[in-house]
């Protein structure tokens, strides 16, 4: 082994990391997120009055609903990055296909994959943990739709960032779900968060979907007003994401990023 060459490799990583803010973000992001989520969850557990069975059911319900989000949040951005990695982007967009058609096609494929993986997930959760979909009831439909739409919204946002800033923001494709996760109150109630985090959580539609999931499971019923607010926020963010995506596409055409990223 030649240590000079090993040093050169380290040097290469050092150069690329210090010039790339998003790589630095990657280094610090995951430990902070992990610490945050499981720290709050531990506090919630120690103070929780919920009995063991309900707690497990709520956790499984949270995991199942959250998986809608994690999948949807990668659908659009990952498919676009795949076009860029395979250098097919220019080939594709030199045809009459529009960005809107591309996104809709991607969402359609995402829906198909989502349905298949959800059926599998519900089945496995039932077989291994006795989790039954009926514990969420018909609430599964609006909550799954709402959470999925928010996933697509963030996926569009990441795609827009990608068009604007290039490959350096690839890390967001995987990080975006984790970034939203601690504030979405998946495994613990909104009240378990510190004050500043509650403010952020109230701005996320996912918070209301998970809060109401717990309400539904513990027999407290659905708060319709909160659901309406969640869908309203969803619609608002979706419109913002579409606008940002369009602007980023124009921006990428102006600075040549559409071609450079290929």
């Amino acid at each position: 082994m030649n240590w000079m060459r090993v040093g050169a490799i380290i040097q290469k990583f050092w150069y690329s990391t210090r010039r790339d803010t998003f790589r630095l973000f990657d280094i610090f992001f995951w430990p902070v997120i992990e610490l945050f989520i499981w720290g709050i969850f531990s506090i919630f557990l120690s103070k929780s009055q919920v009995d063991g069975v309900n707690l497990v059911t709520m956790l499984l319900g949270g995991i199942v609903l959250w998986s809608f989000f994690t999948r949807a949040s990668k659908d659009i951005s990952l498919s676009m990055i795949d076009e860029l990695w395979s250098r097919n982007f220019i080939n594709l967009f030199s045809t009459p296909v529009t960005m809107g058609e591309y996104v809709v096609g991607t969402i359609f494929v995402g829906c198909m994959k989502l349905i298949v993986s959800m059926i599998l997930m519900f089945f496995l959760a039932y077989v291994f943990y006795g989790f039954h979909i009926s514990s969420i009831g018909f609430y599964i439909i609006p909550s799954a739709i709402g959470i999925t739409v928010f996933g697509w919204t963030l996926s569009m946002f990441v795609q827009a960032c990608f068009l604007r800033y290039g490959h350096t923001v690839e890390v967001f494709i995987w990080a975006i779900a984790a970034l939203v996760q601690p504030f979405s109150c998946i495994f613990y109630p909104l009240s378990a968060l510190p004050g500043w985090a509650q403010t952020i959580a109230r701005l996320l539609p996912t918070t209301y979907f998970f809060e109401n999931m717990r309400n539904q499971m513990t027999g407290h019923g659905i708060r319709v007003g909160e659901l309406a607010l969640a869908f309203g926020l969803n619609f608002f963010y979706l419109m913002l994401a579409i606008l940002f995506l369009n602007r980023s596409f124009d921006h990428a055409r102006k600075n040549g990023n559409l071609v450079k990223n290929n």
Partner: protein
Amino acid sequence: MNDILVVDHLIKKFGTFTAVDGISFRVGKGEIVGLLGPNGAGKTTTIFMLLDFIAPTSGNIEIFGLHYKDHRGEILQRLNYSSTYVEMVPRLTVWENLLVMANLYLVPHPKGKIQEVVGRFGVGAFINKRYEDLSQGQKTRVFLCKAFLNDPDLLLLDEPTASLDPDVALLIRKEILVARENGMTILITSHNMAEVEEVCDRVLFINHGKIVAEDTPEELAKKVRQIRVNFMMKDGQKRTMSFAKKAGFPATADGRFVTISVDEADIAYLLSGLADLGVEYGEISIDKPTLEDYFIKMSRIGGGV
């Protein structure tokens, strides 16, 4: 002649760097026009502006009398593009890739059309292979199949015969000429000057983002007045080299062969001078200037002739 493509005072700046600096040209229906220039001259930026991948800083592009702003779909439906620098989906077979492309172009009876173009470009033998498993030459042929799928009115070809064996390159040039006979308009970039001379009606020479020359390949080649005179010497090789040196003509010797570069007006002076010295040669040949000579000259001086 109807203009299929009109480019008017097109400028593209990236920050302080000007990649394309006010170029204007027109391409008529059924014309094959070559866009030539050294690396970094602005050819690719121009092609990408013609495809709407890069927005011009200023200037105007009109294709089929339409603008991208309001007619992107209509323009791209009647246009196609092939380049050695882009790829198709690697995990899909050639057939699958072409079928997807045919459907994006809304080609009626796509399977029949694919069979037709595949036959024309000799792709049948590897139609069921994955795209990622093809050689570069095979990929180029697949891209040409894709480029003809929608029978485009305007075809942009970026290095269409790069990486191809000579016999396949010949086939491609033949297909390009057949396409022109059928009324297709083609804008082509190539580093193969012989190819450009063979297929192009007109050449635009671009350098430092500007069109520095525009003419037929033959006329551009004529602008290079330097010709090469090749001798197979019998006697007097040293005298020949000495004469060339005194006259200021660049000369090289390789065994019994001597090549002297002269302005075409000086040929008579060269031959009579050698005759006066009693030089004897067995064979003499003259290489006329080609488009390649013009390309080299223009690339070196970086401006107009």
